[in-house]
């Protein structure tokens, strides 16, 4: 087996090793089988085409076909017989789309979903092809590290906290294997290998002389893994932990009076670096709305604060039934049952609940329920490792129903209690502007709610620090960057300013679905939203935070996602029927939860699309980076040319006849004026540019040739005629006079000549050469390579000297002398 074919197999193996990071993404190992099958088929196709001595493009094509066929086998659409048909491609498209949805619905580790498996197999297959081509065809295995790195970047993007180290080591080993195999092959082609003591080494036996290289490799990997662990970074480690003001999850016992700082607790949970599962809830409701545990309903100069809840203990008296309460008499309810299991990660004296509980059981300790706040609290017990079940009512209502809600009278106690706002000119002005012309409470609320959208310039960022006081809320309204608690508090304030009761609710978003009706809720699901009191419907939730940025966000009909294109904007159609008073709470109509997390804006740049499809973004970013990297030589070449043209295309001084003045003998010495010096520099710059251009167009450059001869050969070899030929001769003459004559040629249009020669050369070159000259100019690559080689030589010399110096301290030297 030739080295090339063998290299192809090594490339496949290395690709498989570098796919190790996917193990942290998937829950099961099905993906591995499929990926191995795909890569094996691709490698087989590569080896086969190479054995049959196909050209490079045919090898690439063969591998692509092999990948498509394999994918068709593994993910058949059912309409084809082993060979991909248009239906298969359409099926693939569906799978990719499905994968895009799955990435939003599932958190890591994800279950075996067809779409995700397909994307995994496809991605690894593409990487395998690229690695194979780079290694076996182009003999540039070092570049194969880029696609391999792309695989590794997936867990980096998905895991916000520390990324597992092991897959990186496995992948790095694969990469090193590839490099080693390539170099062994190179040495093997060079000739016989032998040990230091003169013994021949078998072809694939590691050379004892390479021990130093292996040691270096191991040290390199170790350093690469260990160094980042030691260095504190912005997103993980000391820095961000020290800057957080909240302790994270409401600490043990968190205030028997229920007076914990909900805002600080929330921001602490969201900005933690690790993801901790707080509770699991299973419910028979199809798309449950948020779990809630606290309310902040007092607005003071410090911002929203929570009153201590006040209610009856569970043992004495049953929970209030909203169906019979006057405040919610307009609402229809549906009853559901939920089981909550809290882990030791959540120890607080406020128990997470769905709204309107009508029965709570199995909760250990003494707990009391505040019917107004709908908060279950305890003075002594915490939720630590509690398991309890809730029967709750889910209100069902529509925007049209809500629009019937009448405004509360000025003296209504609820309105008095929950519309107290500090006087703030900016907020008042904004509210007045937004609610102008709106007649019903609901329309006013919707106008305010709709304003928290991209359209109005709001964007989500967890990196803003907030304790929730008034000046900060106002600042948020002005600079429009913040996260859920700022959105919730700001909206509540504005709604209050419009004369409608509002408060901020705290809790958790839906979480990640698991086994059907069970949802896993982590600290990333901690959330805050606004509740607005509408007469006859009670406290109606509005979540103003952009849903794309919130894990498990949910949008009911009456408060749709404002950033969706279909969402109605600030003006809601209206027909305010005189309302009947009733009350209700949430009954949302939701979309599936998404995986990932909300503060990923820092990991992936800004979340800009409606669909925060991180895979798409990632691929796009990688491709953009790759293209940018590939364009660097071309850019460098263009810059260099600009620089030289700028040097050359100065204002033409007094025009002198470019024809030689002859052996006048009148000029006895060399007069150096600034003009002549400049003219010399110009000619040199133009000549260097011409030489570089020749290198770019793969015309040999001979340092033993004089400028005149070079120009003549250029004209001959590239068949320049007319203007370009004259221009080339002019450049040659200018350079030779700049170098050897007393007076350089002045006033010649060297820049124009350069352009003409270049275009002439490009005309006579074939497309491949032209493309290469434009995209990967050989002159730049060559000078870089030479520079690198020179630096390498210098480093070798230096290390040699260092080694000699170190040898002086080697005790073995003394031993040898003793002998």
């Amino acid at each position, binding site marked *: 087996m030739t080295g090339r074919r063998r290299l192809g197999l090594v490339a496949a193996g290395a690709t498989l090793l570098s796919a190790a990071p996917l193990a942290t993404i998937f829950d099961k190992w099905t993906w591995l089988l499929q990926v191995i099958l795909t890569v094996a088929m691709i490698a087989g196709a590569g080896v086969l085409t190479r054995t049959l001595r196909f050209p490079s493009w045919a090898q690439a094509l063969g591998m692509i076909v092999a990948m498509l066929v394999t994918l068709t086998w593994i993910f058949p659409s059912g309409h084809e017989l082993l060979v991909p048909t248009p239906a298969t491609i359409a099926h693939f498209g569906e799978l990719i789309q499905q994968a895009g949805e799955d990435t939003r619905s599932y958190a890591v580790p994800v279950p075996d979903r067809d779409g995700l498996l397909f994307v995994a197999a496809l991605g690894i297959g593409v990487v395998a092809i690229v690695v194979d081509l780079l290694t076996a065809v182009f003999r540039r295995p070092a570049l194969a590290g880029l696609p391999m790195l792309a695989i590794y970047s997936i867990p980096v993007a998905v895991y916000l906290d520390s990324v597992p180290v092991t897959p990186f080591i496995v992948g790095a080993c694969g990469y090193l294997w590839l490099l080693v195999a390539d170099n062994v092959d190179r040495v093997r082609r060079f000739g016989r290998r032998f040990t230091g003591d003169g013994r021949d080494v078998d072809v694939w036996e590691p050379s004892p002389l390479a021990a130093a290289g292996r040691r270096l490799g191991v040290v390199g990997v170790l350093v690469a893994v260990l160094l980042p662990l030691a260095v504190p970074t912005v997103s993980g480690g000391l820095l961000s932990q020290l800057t957080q003001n909240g302790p994270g999850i409401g600490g043990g016992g968190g205030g028997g009076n229920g007076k914990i700082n909900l805002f600080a607790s929330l921001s602490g949970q969201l900005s933690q670096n690790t993801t901790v599962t707080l509770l699991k809830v299973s419910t028979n409701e199809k798309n449950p709305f948020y779990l809630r545990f606290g309310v902040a309903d007092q607005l003071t100069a410090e911002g929203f604060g929570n009153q201590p809840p006040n209610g009856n203990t569970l043992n004495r008296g049953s929970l209030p039934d909203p169906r019979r309460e006057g405040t919610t008499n307009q609402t229809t309810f549906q009853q559901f049952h939920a089981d909550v299991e809290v882990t030791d990660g959540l120890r607080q004296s406020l128990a997470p609940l769905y709204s309107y509980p009508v029965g709570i059981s199995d909760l250990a300790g003494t707990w009391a329920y505040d019917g107004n706040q709908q908060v279950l609290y305890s003075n002594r017990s915490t939720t630590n490792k509690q398991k309890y079940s809730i029967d709750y009512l889910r209100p069902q209502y529509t925007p049209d129903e809500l629009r019937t809600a009448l405004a509360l009278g000025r003296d209504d106690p609820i309105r008095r209690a929950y519309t107290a706002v500090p006087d703030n000119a900016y907020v008042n002005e904004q509210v007045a502007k937004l609610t102008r012309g709106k007649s019903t409470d609901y329309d006013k609320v919707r106008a305010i709610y709709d304003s928290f959208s991209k359209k109005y310039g709001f964007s989500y960022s967890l990196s803003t620090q907030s304790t929730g006081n008034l000046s900060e809320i106002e600042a948020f309204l002005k600079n429009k960057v913040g996260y859920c608690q700022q959105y919730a508090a700001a909206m509540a304030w504005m709604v209050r300013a419009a004369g409608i009761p509002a408060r901020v609710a705290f809790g958790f978003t839906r979480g990640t679905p698991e086994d059907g009706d069970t949802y896993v809720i982590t600290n990333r699901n901690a959330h805050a939203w606004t509740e607005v009191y509408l007469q006859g419907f009670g406290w109606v939730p509005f979540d103003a935070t952009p849903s794309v940025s919130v894990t498990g966000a949910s949008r009911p009909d009456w408060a749709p996602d404002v950033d969706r294109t279909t969402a109605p904007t600030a003006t809601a159609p209206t027909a305010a029927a005189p309302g009947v008073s009733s009350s209700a709470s949430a009954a949302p109509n939701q979309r599936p939860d998404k995986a990932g997390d909300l503060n990923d804006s820092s990991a992936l740049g800004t979340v800009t699309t409606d669909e925060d499809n991180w895979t798409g973004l990632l691929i796009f970013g990688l491709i953009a980076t790759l293209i940018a990297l590939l364009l660097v030589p071309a850019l460098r070449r263009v810059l260099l040319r600009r620089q030289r043209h700028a040097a050359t295309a100065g204002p033409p001084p007094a025009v002198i006849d470019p024809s*030689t*003045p*002859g*052996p*006048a*003998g*009148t*000029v*006895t010495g*060399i007069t150096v004026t600034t003009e002549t010096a400049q003219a*010399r520099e110009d000619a*040199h710059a133009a000549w*260097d540019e011409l*030489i570089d251009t*020749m*290198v770019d167009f*793969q*015309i*040999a*450059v001979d*340092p*033993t*040739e*004089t400028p*005149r*001869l070079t120009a003549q050969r250029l004209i001959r070899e590239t068949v320049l005629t007319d203007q370009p030929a004259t221009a080339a001769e002019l450049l040659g003459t200018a350079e*030779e*006079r*700049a*170098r*050897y*004559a*007393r007076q350089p040629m002045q006033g010649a249009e060297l820049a124009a000549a350069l352009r003409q020669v270049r275009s002439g050369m490009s005309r006579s070159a074939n497309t491949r050469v032209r493309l290469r000259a434009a995209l990967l100019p*050989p002159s730049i690559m*060559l*000078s870089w390579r*030479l520079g690198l080689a020179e630096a390498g030589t210098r480093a070798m010399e230096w290390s040699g000297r260092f080694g000699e110096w170190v040898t002086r301290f080697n005790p073995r030297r003394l031993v040898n002398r003793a002998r």
Partner: protein
Amino acid sequence: MTTPTWGEPTGPLTSAEFHAATQAIMTNIEQVIEGKSATVRLAVAVLLAEGHLLIEDVPGVGKTKLAKALARSIDCSVRRIQFTPDLLPSDVTGVSVYNQETRDFEFKPGAVFANLVVGDEINRASPKTQSALLECMEERQVTVDGTTYELQAPFMVVATQNPIEMEGTYPLPEAQRDRFTARIAMGYPDPRAELAMLSGHGDHDPLNDLRAVADAAMVRRLIETARAVHAADAVQQYAIALVTATREAPEIRLGASPRSTLQLIRTAKAVAALEGRDYVLPDDLQALAVPVLAHRIIPTADAQLNRRTTDTIVSEIVHRLPIPHANRNPYDTRAAGGGTQYESRGR
């Protein structure tokens, strides 16, 4: 014999005058020697470089004719010496003869007392006679019986020799060869030139029709003008590099002398002037390296066994040395001592 006269116009010529004068000489010579303009130009360049010319080729290609045509074209004193085995040094330099009337020895100048000396078949004379030319060629003077006689300016020896015929010849000693600025080979004419020669030479010798187009004074001014040509530092370094390379080449037993460096630059100046330039190019040096250097070097026995001629060795050196450049060519790693040669084509 012309002697410099007072009142003769001196000083360098202008470009146009120079061009006209040299062109006239070359055209004149080419009336006789058809189709050999490069050789003719080189011969004139040697004249303007104050050098001596060795024309080496097989018999019958026009060696002597070229020498004579050059001599005829310039209105100056010309002597011709036919070198024969029995020629004596005094025949060349001159001899002191006892004069009965004055009762004293009187110096009878030899053949070298002329502006142009044509030495035919120089290698047929014995080495001792050949050596008579050593002093006059380099120092432009003759010392006989303790008296030194200056030769006239310009002074140029044009010698011919036959490299093929070995019988009865004495190869030129190294010292003698080093005194010749350039060695040129005539080469056979191409068929067209030969045809022209047949028709032209059929009834009479065109050499007889040649009229002088310049005189010694003009030649002196031409020489002065050629001397003023500028040779940049880089060009001088290149000349030194070329000569040094012949000394260091492994195939060469004896390299070129420092005198050859000087003569190389001088000839290059003359060539540049003939081409209408007032500065020397490396191209000139490259073109002159073989004529100026090749006849001075002695290849090693190995090289001779390998049938390596000095011409090929020198031209290989020319193709190996990088061109001097004020701002170094970034692709030229050879000048820096690196061993890698730039390949423009990728693998």
